[in-house]
């Protein structure tokens, strides 16, 4: 049966992991390649590398980082951050990524979704959406708004509507981050995730707010998420994606086990 995915996310700046699961016994715990390999060994279904490098010089190291990370990774590998053109995406694919995640570039130029898909297939295009509930709206969830620039700029669009448009333009998956929940460890925004997941036919990856194992069970249940992003699994009192999935299996969530 099709399983729900636990996706390990590494935030990388200037070629170094700045957030994500730390393994005390790794010689270089900031090395994305070593961490990604370890995550895959320990049961992560997929790896996402988000490049948060601000400087142009730092960005040049991204392709080298992707190449080294992809080298011995045999699970799906997504790269996001700073991909603005088809050429940017092509370079990341050539370096070994299986999917690219695009966010503000897709909002600025929605045709980019189909352009990348035309060359690399729709399955390779993940559209990332950062959304926040609109407390003034009659339906704060259905009318949750899409933000860019780290949440500073309201695009005036709703998450549900943008997810549907991204799907129609050829997106393969949606990576939905709740800005209300992100960093709170109070749980995913299950209502928002369910609203988006029910509106599209492509998979929705939930992100933001996980604090306990039960939060993952909630987002796969009430949240109707197809996958969930875990930046720091250690914070949930388990040692690996594998043990997280073992706990989810006890709750009746279909997961890839053994892994």
């Amino acid at each position, binding site marked *: *049966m*099709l*399983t*729900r*995915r636990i996706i390990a996310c590494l935030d990388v700046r200037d070629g170094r992991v700045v957030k994500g699961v730390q393994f005390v016994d790794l010689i270089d715990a900031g090395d994305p390649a070593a961490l990604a390999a370890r995550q*895959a060994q320990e049961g992560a*279904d997929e790896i996402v590398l988000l490049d948060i490098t601000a400087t142009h010089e730092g960005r040049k190291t991204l392709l080298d980082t992707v190449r080294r990370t*992809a*080298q*011995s990774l*045999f*699970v*799906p590998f997504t790269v996001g951050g700073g991909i603005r053109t088809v050429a940017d995406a092509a370079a990341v*694919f*050539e*370096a*070994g990524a*299986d999917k690219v995640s695009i966010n503000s570039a897709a909002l600025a130029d929605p045709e980019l979704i189909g352009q990348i*898909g035309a*060359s*690399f*297939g*729709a*399955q*390779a295009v993940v559209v990332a959406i950062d959304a926040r509930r609109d407390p003034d709206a009659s339906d704060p969830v259905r009318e949750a708004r899409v933000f860019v620039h780290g949440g500073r700029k309201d695009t005036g669009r709703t998450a549900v509507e943008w997810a549907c448009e991204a799907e129609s333009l050829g997106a*393969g*998956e949606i990576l939905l981050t709740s800005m209300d929940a992100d960093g709170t460890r109070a749980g995913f925004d299950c209502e928002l995730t369910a609203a988006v997941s029910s509106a599209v*036919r*492509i*998979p929705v990856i939930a992100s933001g707010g996980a604090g306990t194992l039960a939060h993952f069970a909630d987002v796969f249940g009430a949240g109707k998420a*197809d*996958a969930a992003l875990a930046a720091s699994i250690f914070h949930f009192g388990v040692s690996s994606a594998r043990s997280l999935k073992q706990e989810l299996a006890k709750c009746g969530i279909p997961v*890839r086990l053994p*892994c």
Partner: protein
Amino acid sequence: MAIQVTVIDYKAGNLTSVVKALRHLGAEVSVTDRPEVVAAAERIILPGVGHFAATRRLDETGLTPAIREAIAGRVPFLGICVGMQWLYAGSTEAPNQCGLGHFPERIERFPESEEKVPHVGWNQLDPIRGSRIFAGVEKGEFAYFTHSWRAPITAATAAVTQYIQPFASAVEDKNVFGLQFHPEKSGESGLKILRNFLEFRPC
């Protein structure tokens, strides 16, 4: 001596992952879009993601007859994803584009249901007993899928997967193999399946 394998590049998606996995297994990989290279190949892999219509390029570049002859000459052949689908007569995804027709059936879209289409993620394999490409692969092992069209179950089916309905997640006929999932992205199980293909000897 390293096992030689020729990967066909017909501009349908990204070959990096497949090539990387094959090299990891110790194979000597050459990537080509030339029929004469395919005609001389010892072992052939046809990858492919995206739309069935992209296989038109195989016809336009003369690769189709080269592959047909190689298969007739008992060269081991593996089609992955759209590369598997192309082994059939055609697909409702691109009704005017013929497949190789090695298998007479047609590829069809998953039926409408509550479940999402595309089928994306890790799902389980139920290999047919005696399958060579699944040697050492247990029932219930997982593989990574991403597709909306799929092959029907027939006598040539090598593995069955359940999504909405059971479908053929792999096909096998003498020296011809097809995998609907991505072995290069399916962890240790996927590498085992690719190794089986690399080590397959037609009798």
